[in-house]
C-alpha cells in the first residue's frame, strides 16, 4: 500500500467537499474491493475519504411497496433485516450469500454498486427489481446506472445515498459461483409483478444487464421451459479460465430457469 491521506467525514456534504479538494481522491465505503487493490499497490489514491461515519447513509426502511436501503448498509444487515426478508426475501438471500462473513460485515450495498464489479451480485438485483439509485444529486434508474466494466453513471463528486427497491410479487436470485472466488460466474435475478417480468444478469458480460430476450420469453409464459427457446448471444459473454463464453451463455439459461422455478 502506498501512502495516502485519510479522512473520515460525517456528512455527505463534507464528503463531496473533501473529494473536490483532493488531488486524486477516492471514497471508501466497506473497502472490500478497494483496500485489497490498494494493498496490492494497484491503486494509489492521494486521499481516501471514509463514508463510514455518515449516519444518514445507513439503515433500512419500508414505505408501502418500496424498500429503501441506505448506501452504507452492510450485506449482513440486509441479509438479517426482517423488513427485507418480509418484503423481498430474494434480496435478503442474495445479500446473505455475498463473499464470506468478513466481507458481509464490512461490505456495503452502495460500495458494491458503485464499484460495479462485473461479477458482483447486487447489480443483478438492482436491474431485476428495477431499483432506483438515489444520489446526492439525482435519482438514477437501475437500467441506466451500470454503464460498463467497473463503470457507472456516477460523477466524480456524486455519492450514492440509498437504493430504492420496489417490491415484486415473486423474485429469486440464482448464482453460479466461481469455485475459487465465489463471485458469480453467472447470476440471474428474476422478478415478476403482474404480467411484467424483469431479469437482471450479472457475471456473464462486461457489466450487469437486463436479459431482454429472456424477459420477452417469460412475459408471455412465466415457466422454465419458456427459456429453452431463447438464444443467448455467446459473443457478448465473458470468457476466462473458469468459464468459456459458450458455457456462460448456457449457464445464463440454466440459472434463469432455476430462478423462474424458485419464483413459483
Amino acid at each position: 500500500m502506498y501512502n495516502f491521506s485519510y479522512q473520515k467525514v460525517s456528512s455527505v456534504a463534507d464528503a463531496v467537499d473533501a473529494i473536490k479538494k483532493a488531488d486524486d481522491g477516492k471514497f471508501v465505503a466497506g473497502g472490500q474491493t478497494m483496500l485489497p487493490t490498494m494493498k496490492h499497490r494497484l491503486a494509489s489514491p492521494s486521499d481516501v475519504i471514509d463514508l463510514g461515519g455518515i449516519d444518514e447513509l445507513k439503515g433500512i426502511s419500508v414505505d408501502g411497496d418500496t424498500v429503501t436501503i441506505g448506501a452504507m448498509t452492510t450485506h449482513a444487515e440486509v441479509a438479517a433485516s426482517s423488513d427485507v426478508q418480509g418484503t423481498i426475501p430474494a434480496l435478503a438471500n442474495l445479500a446473505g450469500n455475498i463473499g464470506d462473513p468478513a466481507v458481509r460485515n464490512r461490505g456495503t450495498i452502495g460500495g458494491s454498486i458503485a464499484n460495479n464489479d462485473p461479477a458482483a451480485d447486487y447489480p443483478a438485483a438492482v436491474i431485476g427489481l428495477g431499483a432506483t439509485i438515489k444520489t446526492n444529486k439525482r435519482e438514477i434508474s437501475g437500467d441506466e446506472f451500470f454503464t460498463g466494466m467497473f463503470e457507472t453513471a456516477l460523477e466524480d463528486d456524486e455519492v450514492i445515498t440509498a437504493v430504492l427497491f420496489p417490491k415484486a410479487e415473486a423474485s429469486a436470485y440464482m448464482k453460479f459461483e466461481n469455485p475459487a472466488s465465489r463471485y458469480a460466474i453467472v447470476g440471474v435475478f428474476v422478478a415478476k409483478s403482474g404480467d411484467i417480468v424483469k431479469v437482471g444478469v450479472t457475471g456473464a458480460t462486461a457489466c450487469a444487464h437486463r436479459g431482454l430476450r429472456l424477459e420477452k420469453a417469460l412475459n408471455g409464459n412465466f415457466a422454465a421451459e419458456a427459456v429453452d427457446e431463447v438464444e443467448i448471444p455467446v459473443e457478448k459473454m465473458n470468457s476466462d479460465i473458469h468459464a468459456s463464453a459458450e458455457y456462460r451463455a448456457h449457464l445464463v439459461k440454466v440459472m434463469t430457469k432455476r430462478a423462474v422455478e424458485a419464483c413459483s
Partner: protein
Amino acid sequence: MAENGVGASVRRKEDHRFLTGKGSYTDDLNVVGQTHAYFVRSPHAHATINNINTSAALAADGVVAVLTGDDLAADGIGPLICGVSVTSDDGEPHRAPVHSALAQGKVNYVGDHVAVVIAETLTEAKDAAEKVEVDYGILPAVTDTATAADDGQEQIHEVAPNNQCFNWPFGDKAAVDAAFESAHKVSSLDLVNNRMVTNPMEPRAAVGEYNSGTEEITLHLTTQNPHVHRLVMSAFNQLAPEHKLRVVGPDVGGGFGVKIFVYSEELVVGWACRKVNRPVKWTSDRTEAFLADAHGRDHVAHAEMAMDENGTFVAMRVNTTANLGAYLSTFATMVPSYLYAFLLAGQYSTPLIYSEVKAVFTNTAPVDAARGAGRPEATFLLERLVDVCAEDMGLDPAEIRRRNFIPVDAFPYQTPVVQCYDSGDYNAALDKALALADYEGFAGRAEEAKSRGKYRGIGISSYVEACGIAPSAAVGQLGAGVGLWESAQVRFNPTGNVQVFTGTHSHGQGHETTFAQLVTEQLGVPIENIEVIHGDTSKTQFGMGTYGSRSLAVGGVAIAKACEKLIEKGKKIAAHALEAAVGDIEFSDGNFTVAGTDKTMNIAEVAFNAYVPHSYPEGLEPGFDENAFFDPMNFSFPAGTHICEVEVDPDTGVVEIVKYSAVDDFGKLINPMIVEGQVHGGIVHGVGQALLEGCQYDSDGQLITASYMDYAMPRADNVPSFDVDYAPTNPPHNPLGVKGCGEAGAIGAPPAVINAISNALGIKHIDMPATPENVWRAAQTATS
C-alpha cells in the same frame, strides 16, 4: 493400555496454545533493531539481465542495503542444491543447472529472485524495490510440460540440452514389450496430473540474526526440518559452519512438503543479516507464495496395461513427462523417479513393469514434493488405468482389483519395481470399504438420482504408498545425499517430569501429543508431565525432520528405543535401591518392582536417585537421560481402499461428493482422533486436486492462477462427512507396528473422485481438476 497411552484419542496438548492465540510463528518474532527484506522478482518468465541499477533504490528513504547475485557470489555463498541424483539413460547424472539464490545474468521464471532490498520498514523496502532498475532482454518462454523437450524449443539452461533434466528408464523393456505383444487385451490411457500450489495457511517466513560477538547466525524459519536446513546451508551454501548456525522452526502453520526445501529467500536472509549486521525479517505475502513456493505434481503420462483373458495384469508400461520447473528444488529429482515409478505396482501382482520418466525444465516455479510426492501421481495413473481395464474387460471395478491383488499370504512381497511390501491385506480393506460404502446398493441410488435428473457415479481407489522414509542404505544406493534415520532423546528431570527431544518437526500433525502418548505408555509417566521438544538445532540433537509420513514410523521408534534404554538403566538403579538382583527387577506402569514382592519404586524416584546418586550402583553413570537413533530396515506401506460417490448435475457440470468411505491400513493407531483428522485432511487435499486446484501458466509464463480469486482451494462445503474405518495389518519391520497416515488421503482420493465422475458420465476419462465446465462438456456426450 496406560491412561492416555497408545490407542487413546487424547485431545491435542498443543491445541491450547493454538486455540488461545499463543502459538508462536516465525512472523510473530520481532527482534530489536530488525530490518525488513523485500525481494525484487522477475516479471518475466525468461530473460537475460543486462544490467541492474540499484542507485535510486539505495538512495530511497530507510534503505539499509540493496543486494544482488553479484554480492552473493562475491561473498562465496554457494548455489541452492538438489540432494538426490538420478542417472539418465545416457549413463550421466541428471542435468543440474546452477541455481543462485539471487539471479546471476538470467531469470528463468516469473517470481525469480533478482535482488533484495533491506530497509527499516517493509513499506520502505517495497517502495525502494520499485526503484531498482533492471534491464531485461526478454526471451521466449517454455511452459508446456508435454512439449518442453521438443526440438526447436527455446533452451533454458545450457547444461540441459532439449530442456531435459533426465530421461530415466526403469524395468525390463524387452520382457515387457514381449508380454504386451502376446497379451489378450491391452488397455491404455493418456492422463495429466495437474499442477498444484500447495498453499499452507502460514506463508513462508524467515528472521535472521547475527551475533558479531559469537559470530553465530540464528535463523528462524518456516521449516519442516531445521537440521536439514542447517546442514545444507552450511555444507553446500557456505552460509556458516554448522556449529555457528542455529536454525529454529518454531510453530509452523502447515507444511505439506513446501517447507522441506531450502529456498532463496531463507538463504538470503541468513546471509544478509550478517552482511548488514542487523536482524533481517522476511515474510512471504500470498502472491509471493503462489509465485515462488515450490509447486507440486505436473505430469503428462501415457499408461498401458496388458491383460490375459481373465483380466489378470501381465505387464504394465508407462511413459511419463514430469515438469520440474525452472530450477531443481531440494528434492525435485526424487519425486517423479523413485517416489513415483517404484510405486507403480500398487496393490497388484503385475509381474512386469516398465517405466520411462523424462524430467524437463520449463520457465515455471520449481516443482518438488507436495503431500504424497510421487505416490499420488503413481496412484492416480494406476487406479484410473485399472478402471479402464475393468471397462475394457467387462468386469466390475471391484472384481478386477480382487483378481489382481497381491494375496495376503504373499507378504513380504517383492514388486518388480524395487519396493518389497512387508505387510498388507488388500482384500480386507476392499471388503470393508465396499460394505461401508454400501456398494451393493449403488444401483438403486443411481436410479433414484436419475429421477431427479442427476448422474450418480461410484469410484474405487485401492492405493499403496511407501512411507516411513526411509532406510538410509536404500536411499543412499538410489542417490540420496543424506541418511533418513531419526533421533530422539528422552530426558528425565530430577523432579520426575520428562522432556522428549525429537529430530522430527510438528507443523500440524500433533506430535506433541502422539509422542507423549508413546512415552506415557512405555514409561508410565502421566502425560501432563511429558513435554515434546522439537524444531531448534540448539535444543535438539540432529534429526532429519518431518515429511513422507515418517515421524511416527521412524521418529517414534527412536523415542521408544530411548525409553527402553531408560528402563534398562532404571532397573540397575532400582535393583541397588531395593537391594535386589537386576535380573529380578520388573518394570510396568511406571514402577520398578522386585519380582514376586511388593518392594517397588516409581520411575520418578529412580530418576531422582540418578541425579542425586548418594547411594548408587558402582560404576553406573549418574543422570537419567538417554538418546537413540533409528534407521528403518524398510519403508512402511500404508494401503487402503477409498470409495467416492458423486452426483453430477448435467445442466451445470457441478460435481457433488455425496458419500466418501475410506478404509485404511496404517498398522497400529496411537491416537485414533489425530489419525482420523489426518485422513480427513488428506482426503480434502485429494478432493482439491481432483475437483478444484489447477495451477495455470499462460504461454508467456505468467501465472494466471496467482491468487485465491482464481486458484480454488477446497472448502468445507466441497466435501461430505467422511466414513472412515481401518483394516490394519502388522508391519514386521516396525517395532511400534505403525505405518504412517499423513499422506494417505491425498494419495487415495484423486482417483476415487475421478473414477466416480467417469462412472457417472459413462466416459473413459476426465482430467483433473474436473471443473464444472469440463464436466458439463463431458456430460454432453455422456451415456448415463
